[in-house]
């Protein structure tokens, strides 16, 4: 039963199994284990990024194509919910319409981009997605009449999902709408994650891996490489859009910085590479480590910068604003030395 749920792709390493179970447990009981607003925010962020990163891994790790437009799809989902809630008023219907519309729009856009670039050569795809994603980001921040521009959009979601909705207390933790909202996010993310696991372990996923390993041979066996790549792109885009919708429902706010910026794209890339390309489980570990580090390490950098204030240049390098610098270095080093990431290491290091 469990194996079936995991689509036959068990973690295949004792340490990995323990870590994954620990993360699953921590996320499932986050409100009770780590009470507090900030830790709940972190937990929800981890859930959503796990799905986002896993969907990106379907593209990068399994199909072997680089996209820079993943945040664009993520943003499409988020803005879908925001615009629908804005236009239709608060309600479950608005959430559903926004989510579906966002996912559909993402799939269509991904198909169009894919048809333009993937039929020539996969490397075009990286460049074109970069160009399109930046154009969309500029467009969103310019069309402030519709999207709220740089300020983004605030909107209301059904009352059952907000802190104002109270149900009582369990084990000293107040059960309110925020908690229900968290469990909505958690459940959806778990389901989406299992769906992705199912996809990559299906015959379709095998074909994708074959294409990654040897495009020419896959074509020679009789698989239409372009179709498979385009379908993978659409699938990954719509899952990313769904993750974006969840993010929008959780935050009750969307803005270009939180959903569309290139920085998030880099975060996703780093999470995939750290966790391990070509393993959906890598997304779990990568996202968990990265979001935790992002939330708590920057504070550490700040204090380190203060401690070294007397030295030349060092405090500048340790300034929390230079967080990206160290990410970049880490990113290059992990591509060179850990191309299989943590999961790959754990699986072979028995």
């Amino acid at each position: 039963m469990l194996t079936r749920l995991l689509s036959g792709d068990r973690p295949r390493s004792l340490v990995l199994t323990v870590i994954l179970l620990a993360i699953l447990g921590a996320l499932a009981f986050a409100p009770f284990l780590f009470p507090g607003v900030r830790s709940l925010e972190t937990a929800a962020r981890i859930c959503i990024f796990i799905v986002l990163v896993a969907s990106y891994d379907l593209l990068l790790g399994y199909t072997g194509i680089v996209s820079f437009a993943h945040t664009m799809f993520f943003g499409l989902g988020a803005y879908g919910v925001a615009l629908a809630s804005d236009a239709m008023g608060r309600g479950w219907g608005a959430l559903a319409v926004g989510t579906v519309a966002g996912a559909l729009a993402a799939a269509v856009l991904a198909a169009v981009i894919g048809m333009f670039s993937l039929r020539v050569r996969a490397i075009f795809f990286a460049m074109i997605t970069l160009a399109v994603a930046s154009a969309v980001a500029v467009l969103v921040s310019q069309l402030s009449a519709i999207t709220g521009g740089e300020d983004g959009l605030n909107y209301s979601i059904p009352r059952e999902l907000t802190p104002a909705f109270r149900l009582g207390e369990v084990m000293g933790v107040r059960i309110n709408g925020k908690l229900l909202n968290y469990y909505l996010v958690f459940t959806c993310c778990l389901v989406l994650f299992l769906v992705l696991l199912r996809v990559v372990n299906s015959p379709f996923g095998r074909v994708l891996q074959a294409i990654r390993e040897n495009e020419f041979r896959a074509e020679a066996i009789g698989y239409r490489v372009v179709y498979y790549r385009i379908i993978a792109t659409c699938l990954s885009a719509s899952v990313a859009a769904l993750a974006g919708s969840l993010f929008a429902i959780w935050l009750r706010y969307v803005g270009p910085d939180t959903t569309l910026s290139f920085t998030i794209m880099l975060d996703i890339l780093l999470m995939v590479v750290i966790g391990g390309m070509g393993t959906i489980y890598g997304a779990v570990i990568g996202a968990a480590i990265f979001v935790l580090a992002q939330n708590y390490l920057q504070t550490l950098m700040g204090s380190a910068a203060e401690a070294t204030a007397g030295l030349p240049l060092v405090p500048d390098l340790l300034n929390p604003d230079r967080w990206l610098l160290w990410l970049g270095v880490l990113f290059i080093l992990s591509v060179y030395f850990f191309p299989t990431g943590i999961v790959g290491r754990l699986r072979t290091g028995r």
Partner: protein
Amino acid sequence: MSVAPDHSPTFARTSLAERLSRAAPYLLVPVLVVLGFLAIGAPSSWLTLTVSGLAMGMMIFVMASGLTLVFGLMDVINFGHGAFISVGAFVGISVLLALGSWTGAPSLALNVAAVMLAVVAAMIVTGALGWAFERVIVRPVYGAHLKQILVTVGGLIVIEQLIHVVWGPDEIFLTRPETLKGAFTFAGAAIEKYRLLAVVVGLVLFVAMRLVFTRTKIGLIVRAGVQNGEMVEALGYRLRLVFIGVFIAGSALAGLGGVMWGLYQEVITAGMGEEMMILVFIVVIIGGLGSIEGAFIGALLVGLLQNYIAFLEPKLALISNIGLMTAILMWRPQGMMPVVEAK
């Protein structure tokens, strides 16, 4: 025994349609200029827009030429190219700011000397940086596109952040040297002097590049290397050395482009390279990977179209480049003049 069929080779003249389709990319720029004239109507604003479009196109071409050659020659896609643009701009502008008394003087000789010094400094620094980039970042990942993209993006981020560390997090504003400020009127149209200079520099560079490629031995080797690298190596040329040279030259050109762009915008930010990369990629794609002429035409198209559209329909300007790219790729999926066969 049957007789072998007669061998009668014929030299068919290329048909008009074929010659037209070969020349079509060259015709696009004049066609666009004429269309712009018809759409805008007023000759004076049309002239202003055309000059600024050409200036912009020339600057983009300077930045894009290195990238397209590097790709054509060694199948290396360098997403970190934008970092050289930023670094070039920052080094060049720092030199200009340090030579404040030269740039402030209303003397053409001193101004030009200051700009030349800035350009040389920027090109030396970005060339050296390109050499280091090739050695440290690109060399270990030859032949693996996926890793190349990832690693060079990482390099872009690191260099951009180092600019923040060295020059501080804020953008730097500057003013152009005295004699390059202002505009003059020609046929009723105001033409900024600096834009005209940018057009001239770009044209000179393009012609020089073409001469190098068509008239010199090194140019011959590079062109042959783009078409079939293995064959060139089999003939005994060390293509790797040539490639490193091209990489360094391309980086230095990106640095030059950065200085020119900085002087054009009169403000520089660490993120400018990243922003320009988008345009550079569009130009390289529509030009056809590996083609200098294609990049030249593509850059002019992008520059002109952006200026015309910004005048006619300001809202559309944001997506005009994407639209151009879509149109060109529908017409020729490989770009206008692909040199490298799709791999």
